[in-house]
Every structure is written in structure tokens, then in C-alpha cells.
């Protein structure tokens, strides 16, 4: 990042904090509610974006995140309700995510199916399978509840917004840091970025491009699987048809918007969560007397504008080998 960009970023962050604080002093509960809603809506998007980013950094487009979410949510819920254990459900959801990731890898890397098609196959089969096999009598067993992080949870504003959260949300925040370090500091990350930019170069230094892609896309599926578990067992507490509701696609947008970095994606996810929470708040308060359909457009219109402007300010570059199957030699 160029120094000026960094300065702008800090200035923007400072401004945001200042504005938030102003609102908080004016109306604490509402500000807390909006910001807590923001963080909450961001979790799933962040997990999906991380899944997409690991794939794309290695050169594999994943438009199947939506299907991965849905399928994992289904399995997480089903196993949780069968075993009565949220934990086992979560593990099963992650497991299903890994399986979905492996399927994507098997198609896109192994069989060299076009990556967009492979993702689409995941999406439509997930929608079909989860509806087809949905157990009409399965009952949820509740969901993860908030864990207060000691005295931190009592902080004004921040306490509720960041430090009194259910476990998968904390896990996601930890994963953001982990994935950041892994991508940009670790041996694995360096090789991953190399195979996304120039698989031929990686090949010639003895990195097994196809195997690493296989591995990464599978692991990334685990992150989307955690997203599915989060959706079924932490955000909602039950499963319902098509409950992912397009968030897998939004996660893709968030990932691109966040320049395929974990923190960037989280910022983008927060931004998106914020506009969603804000438009709910407008309705709750009757702030504007305009139909909910128009208030509901807010997050999407704002995203288009921001994406266009950030495009003008210097477009981000996709990994050079993105979308291409790699042929050895």
C-alpha cells in the first residue's frame, strides 16, 4: 500500500470512530444496536470472503461459496439436532465444507472443469440436495450464546459490539488474523500467492501446483463450512431452505472489494453489515417515510458507488493466473 493510501485509511478510520462516538453519546442503545448488528452481519461474509480469497490467491475462482454455505449449514444443523451437540454440529459443518471444497478442487483442479462451471455445479446441487433431503421433523437444539470476555465486555459500546459475542464470531476474528499471517508471512502463503500469480514459476522450483491448489481449495471449503455452521448454529439456530439467501455471492463481492486480503475483506464486510444494520435502524425509527424497498436498496447502491469510485482510484489487479487451469510443463 502506498503511504498516502495508508494515511487516508487512518484518517478515515479515525473519522469513523469519532462519528460513532458522537452518536453513542447522543443515543447509546441505538448506536450499540447498529454497531453490534454490523459486526454480526459481517461474520458470515468474512468467512465466505476468506474462503474465496484462498482459492483466488491460488488461482481458482470460487463462485460456489453460496452452495458451500448452504450445504454446510444443512449438515451442521442435521448433525447438531441428531447428536444434541452444537460442537459436533459445527465440526460436521466444517467437515461438509471441506468435502465441498474438495469437490470443487476435484472438478476445477483435478478434472480441469472450467472453474465457473464447477462453482455453479456446487450451487445448484446444494440447493437441490438440501431441499431434497431436508428432514421435515428435525428440531434445533438452540444456538451458541454470547461469551463475555471478562472485564472487556463491560466497556461501553465496545463491550457489546466486540467482546460479548458467541464463540464462532471470536473464532472468525481469530481466523482473520491467522489467515492474514498465513497468507503473507508463512511458507504456505508465499507458495500460494506464487501459484496464483505464476504457476509455471512455482512449478519450476519444485512446488506441486496442482497439489497445492487441491489442498488450498479444500481447506478454503472448510472456512465456508464454518460459515455454514455459523449460519445454522450461531446466527439462526435452525435450518431452512435456501437460508444462505445470496450471501455467498455477497461474500464474493466483499472479497474483491477487500482486495483479497483478510483485513480488507473484513472491512468490506463490516461496511456491508453497517449499511444493512443502518437501513434496519431507519425502519425501526421511522427515520424516513419511504418504502422499505428503497431503504433496502441502500447497501447495494452504496456498494456499486464505492466499487466504481475505488475502481477509478486505481483498480486492483486480479492474480494473474486466476481462472486458468494449469497444465504442467
Amino acid at each position: 500500500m502506498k503511504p498516502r493510501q495508508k494515511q487516508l485509511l487512518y484518517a478515515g478510520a479515525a473519522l469513523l470512530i469519532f462519528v460513532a462516538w458522537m452518536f453513542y453519546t447522543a443515543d447509546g442503545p441505538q448506536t450499540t444496536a447498529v454497531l453490534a448488528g454490523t459486526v454480526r452481519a459481517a461474520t458470515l461474509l468474512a468467512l465466505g470472503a476468506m474462503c474465496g480469497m484462498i482459492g483466488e490467491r491460488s488461482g481458482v475462482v470460487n463462485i460456489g461459496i453460496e452452495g458451500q454455505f448452504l450445504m454446510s449449514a444443512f449438515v451442521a444443523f442435521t448433525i447438531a439436532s441428531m447428536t444434541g451437540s452444537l460442537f459436533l454440529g459445527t465440526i460436521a459443518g466444517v467437515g461438509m465444507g471441506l468435502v465441498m471444497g474438495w469437490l470443487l478442487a476435484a472438478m476445477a483442479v483435478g478434472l480441469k472443469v472450467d472453474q465457473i462451471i464447477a462453482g455453479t455445479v456446487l450451487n445448484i446441487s446444494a440447493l437441490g440436495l438440501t431441499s431434497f433431503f431436508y428432514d421435515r421433523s428435525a428440531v434445533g437444539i438452540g444456538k451458541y450464546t454470547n461469551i463475555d470476555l471478562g472485564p472487556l465486555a463491560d466497556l461501553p459500546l465496545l463491550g457489546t459490539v466486540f467482546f460479548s459475542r458467541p464463540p464462532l464470531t471470536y473464532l472468525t476474528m481469530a481466523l482473520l488474523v491467522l489467515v492474514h499471517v498465513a497468507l503473507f508471512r508463512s511458507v504456505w502463503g508465499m507458495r500460494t500467492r506464487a501459484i496464483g500469480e505464476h504457476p509455471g514459476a512455482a512449478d519450476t522450483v519444485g512446488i506441486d501446483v496442482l497439489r497445492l491448489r487441491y489442498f488450498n481449495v479444500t481447506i478454503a471449503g472448510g472456512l465456508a463450512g464454518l460459515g455454514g455452521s455459523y449460519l445454522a448454529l450461531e446466527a439462526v439456530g435452525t435450518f431452512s431452505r435456501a437460508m444462505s439467501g445470496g450471501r455467498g455471492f455477497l461474500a464474493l463481492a466483499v472479497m474483491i472489494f477487500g482486495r483479497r486480503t483478510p483485513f480488507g475483506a473484513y472491512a468490506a464486510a463490516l461496511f456491508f453489515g453497517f449499511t444493512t444494520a443502518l437501513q434496519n435502524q431507519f425502519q425501526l425509527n421511522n427515520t424516513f417515510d419511504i418504502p422499505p424497498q428503497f431503504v433496502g436498496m441502500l447497501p447495494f447502491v452504496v456498494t456499486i458507488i464505492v466499487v466504481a469510485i475505488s475502481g477509478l482510484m486505481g483498480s486492483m489487479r486480479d492474480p494473474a493466473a486466476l481462472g486458468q487451469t494449469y497444465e504442467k510443463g
Partner: protein
Amino acid sequence: SSDGGGGISGGYSIGLVTDTGKVDDKSFNQSAWEGAQDGAANIPASATASYIETEESKDYANNIQLFVDDGAKIIVTVGFGLGEATIEAAKANPDVMFIGVDQWQNEALPNLAGLMFPEANAGFMAGALAGMLTETNIVGAVLGTDLVPPVVFFKEGWENGARYTNPGVQTISTYHPGGLDVAFGDPEWGATTARQALDQGADIIFGAGGATGNGALIEVAGEAGALCVGVDTDQWFTVPEAHPCLVTSAMKLIDVGVAELISQAYAGTMQGGNYFGEVGLAPHHDFDSIVTDEMRDTLAEVMAGLADGSINPMPG
């Protein structure tokens, strides 16, 4: 006796066509299906009930026709969306009895009964109870979409009912901001929004909007001390996850209405035109003890007032 999806041949058969949705939607398709099964069980002849789940609203007419061709004697169609297709089919098949749930009949056809419910009344009663129960004086509603009038009636009734028993109450309500295609199938938004209402002080939340509303109920269940109100059926049975908060549900007794109309149709006493089903509050289950006698008296008054018209659930 009854069976699941799939056709039947011979015997007295009852068919049900869902709105775009499933017979296990824990909401109105499900209650209608339960009503159809009850109705089949109640009639003396050996009758079978079966259903078709509509995938796309363009298939309404075709799905009805499948039952007609199969010789069904009674066909139940669920949801206002099927209104036109049902009228067409009723006109074309005078020998088949039709029951249209949530379908208003402008002109009466002898073989078609529209089963209607005054949702505003149900919402009003639930709101009245909420107005009495709230300690923070803030009650919230997480709703499907304003594009579907029954949801609007529930909401307006709910808010007016709360104000009726508690003039100082603050009502905060939100419709799902998305299109009709996701408004009833987005429990994540329902839960997040319910939390947003809780965070700013609401202590009773009304969840009305299919899976979206159910998401809200389950979210409230995780908040100690907060209460929730279900919709359409007694959600104690359809959303067990909501037991920790479910104080009542604003019910449309669709199953009762459907079963009743099936009995009438079998007996040949069904009248064409509109048939008004019952609405009411579901039992309080675990929360029976917090609803005081005083509150019960007020609710009885409200009910009477709504019945005799002295209370208007949607003024203006």
C-alpha cells in the same frame, strides 16, 4: 387416513396445492396440510389426502388440474396467490369442491369457499398482551414484507393493540428489506434484526414472516428475560427452539378452518363465497404464570370488542 405427496386413484380423495412453499414450512402451508389431513380423517368414508408443492407460481393452474384429472373430490389451494387459478378451476369443474385459503371471493361460486382470517384482530390481541407484559415499554416486530397484505394487517394490529393497553409504549417494527423472493426465507436477517431491536431495549418481539420470523423467535429465545410472539399457528409446536421465549402466537386457525370446510364439503353443506375462520391467541405454555388474571380479563374484553366491532384494530 392420509399419505404424503403423490397421487391417489379411487376412493374419496382430497388434494392440496401449496403456494410456492413446502407442506413443512412451519407456517400456513403446513397448517393447511394438517387441516386437510384432519378433514380427511374426520369424514366417514375412507378418504385420502395428498399434496403437490408448487415450485413456481406459474404452475398453479397445472397443479390444480392434476388433481382434477385424478378425480379429486375436494381441492384445497393455499395462499392468495392461487386465487385466480382456483376461481378458474372452480368454474370449469362444478362437481369438484374447492377451498381457497386466504382467498377473498368477490362473487360467490357455489363450489368455492374462500377461507379468510381477520389477521389484524389476531395481531391486535397479541399486541394488547405485549403492551401489558413489556417492562421496557418497547415492543418490536420483525416482519416478512409489506408486499403481502396479511403481514401488514398483523403489524398494524400488533402496534395498535400494544398502544391500546399501553399508550406509552414505543413500537419498533421492520419489514424485510429484500424482495418477495427472500422476504420469508431469510432467518439470518430475522435473527440479526431481532437482536438489533433487543439491543435497543425491546423486550417482546413479534416474529411474523415464515422462516424469517422464525429466525427472530429463536434469537429472542437466547436472550434471558425477553419474550417472543409467534404467528399463524401455535408456534410452540412448529418452532420448538423458541420455547424459552414464546409467550403466545397470533393464530389463524387455518387447520381448523380447512378441516371444517372439508367436513362441510363432504356433507354438501359448504356455502360458496367467503368463510371467516377463527383467529386467536395460542396458549401461553411455559409462560402461563406471568399472564395475570387481570391481563386475561383485559384480553377477554379486547376479544369481545373486536368481535362486536367496538374496537377497530386498524384505525385510519
